[in-house]
């Protein structure tokens, strides 16, 4: 489903060259729940951005569903992100000026979906994360756990095959963290492929496979 071959990422400034990722080879199968672990600054988020087509590798190849994406145009990449990928972030990235349901609808704005259909799909996604009673609320009126559930609803509203979660429990207490992981596991059980970056060893152990990074290099 997701294949990275000899991926390397170098950040260059006029005076410094930083190797963020070095020779990464990952093959995530359909329906797998993979976690990526490593200390701060080891390149976990960079790797997730590359998998999520938000960043391009300096070297190497990425394949999504067997198709290499290097030559994809901005429009094609955006469409792939919209259709195939769902993102969950540590800091939720909710738009404070939009209600919960409007936040969840965002990915559908970039598709030809009618307003009615958008509303229905967003309601369905919010029901899945147990927030159907908070649809009209604004993010500021929600707890951290509720915000992350909104972010999950937003990630799954477009029914993507792959969910990329960047430390989804990082800002939550352990009980709330477990709740979020439970939702992700359920989504995985329903067929979604999940790649999760985490600091939490206990969380990582609950996934199918663990990839460890250290200083930009894959160590397991």
């Amino acid at each position, binding site marked *: 489903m997701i294949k990275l071959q000899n991926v390397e990422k170098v950040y260059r400034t006029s005076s410094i060259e930083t190797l963020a990722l070095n020779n990464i080879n990952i093959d995530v199968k359909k329906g797998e729940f993979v976690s990526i672990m490593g200390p701060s600054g080891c390149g976990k988020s*960079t790797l997730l*951005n590359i998998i999520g087509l938000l960043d391009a590798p300096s070297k190497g190849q990425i394949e999504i569903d067997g198709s290499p994406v290097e030559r994809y145009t901005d429009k094609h990449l*955006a469409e792939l992100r919209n259709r195939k*990928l769902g993102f969950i972030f540590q800091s939720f990235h909710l738009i404070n000026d939009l209600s919960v349901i*409007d936040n969840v609808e*965002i*990915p559908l*704005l970039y598709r030809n979906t009618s307003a009615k259909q958008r509303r229905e799909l967003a309601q369905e996604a919010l029901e899945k994360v147990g927030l159907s009673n908070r649809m009209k609320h604004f993010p500021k009126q929600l707890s951290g756990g509720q915000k992350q559930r909104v972010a999950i609803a937003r990630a799954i509203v477009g029914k993507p095959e792959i969910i990329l979660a960047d430390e989804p429990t990082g800002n939550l207490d352990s009980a709330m963290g477990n709740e979020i992981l439970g939702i992700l596991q359920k989504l995985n059980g329903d067929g979604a492929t999940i790649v999760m970056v985490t600091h939490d060893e206990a969380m990582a152990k609950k996934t199918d496979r663990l990839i460890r990074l250290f200083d930009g290099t894959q160590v397991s």
Partner: protein
Amino acid sequence: MLRHLFKLIWNKKGTHSLLIIEVWAAFMVLFGVLTLIVFNLRNYLQPIGFQYEQVWNLELSTNQDTTEIASKLQRAMQRVRSYPEVTAASRMSSNTPFSANQIGNSINYNKVDVGGDFYYTDSELAKVLDIPVKKGRWYAESDLVGKFIPIVINQVMEDKLFQNESGLNKVVKRDEKTSYKVVGIVDKFKAKGKFMSDNPGLFQMLEKNDRWNSNILIKTKPGTDANFEARLVKDIAMMLPGWGVEVGYLKDSRKNRENLTLVPVIIFLIVSGFLLTNVALGLFGVLNLNIAKRKGEIGLRRAMGATESGVTSQFLGEIWVLATFSLIIGLIFAVQFPLMNVFDLDKEIYIIAILAAVAVIYIIVTLCAWFPSKLAAAIHPAVALHEE
């Protein structure tokens, strides 16, 4: 997407209220200035209705002289007409073309009262100023023997006074003692120049022994120069000792008069130009700041499937929605002008000014939002998400 943008701006209306007021104020000022410009431009595009290129205005002032004024004026007229350089000459009241003087009065027909400019002239004015007569004829001296004073009116006067009827040969009243007979109708007579609106006007035949109207319009042959002017002034001054004699060219008077109209328009334009520049700079600054504050959202939208051009369109769309809110408020005020017929201007002028002001506001906000929106689109999604 449009609905989403409306929702986004509506939910942030508190934050955007000052910006909305700023755009509204800019719209109102622009509407005022454009109304002035459209009004003047429309007037400018209409012909003035007469020729002035070769016409001089000989202005005679009696000063302390009080004796035999009428006969002296008649003799002066005869003298002027006797020069071979003169094609035609006509006596006229002090409101000669392009002068600052104005004589106004009103006439009445079938209980309809119409005010307009009154010009007191003789039978030669149409010849001197090449005023084409549309219907009927210009009055002649023989008309003075009739029961009513002969007049020629312009088309607007005919339309307003007689509405669907023809005004020719109709008798109209100025007051209980004075009645006029319309002998001719001319098209336009914009005595104050191109920027003057086509107001109702009336030409009244001067009485033979009139002593009050002492301006003589002289149509000269092409090539007549200042030597003739000097000779003319000298001859007339000798003929009318103690009188003031002054010659002005109508083409020079026209320039002065039109400048008097243009100067306030230019001042308003400069003031509104400054205002619009301030609005534009303000908008530009606010949008730049907005984008810097919304990097996380930009990254998120890119992650959710927005293309670079999609981000540009979104920010442009937001500013258009914001401008639309301001314009809706502005339009509520602006439409009152044509609806309530403020300043008695043609409705079309206000409508054109409203449409032009709306277009200019959209152009300004688009120009101001374009660069920040492009900047927003160029932000790398991974960087934007990381910075949040």
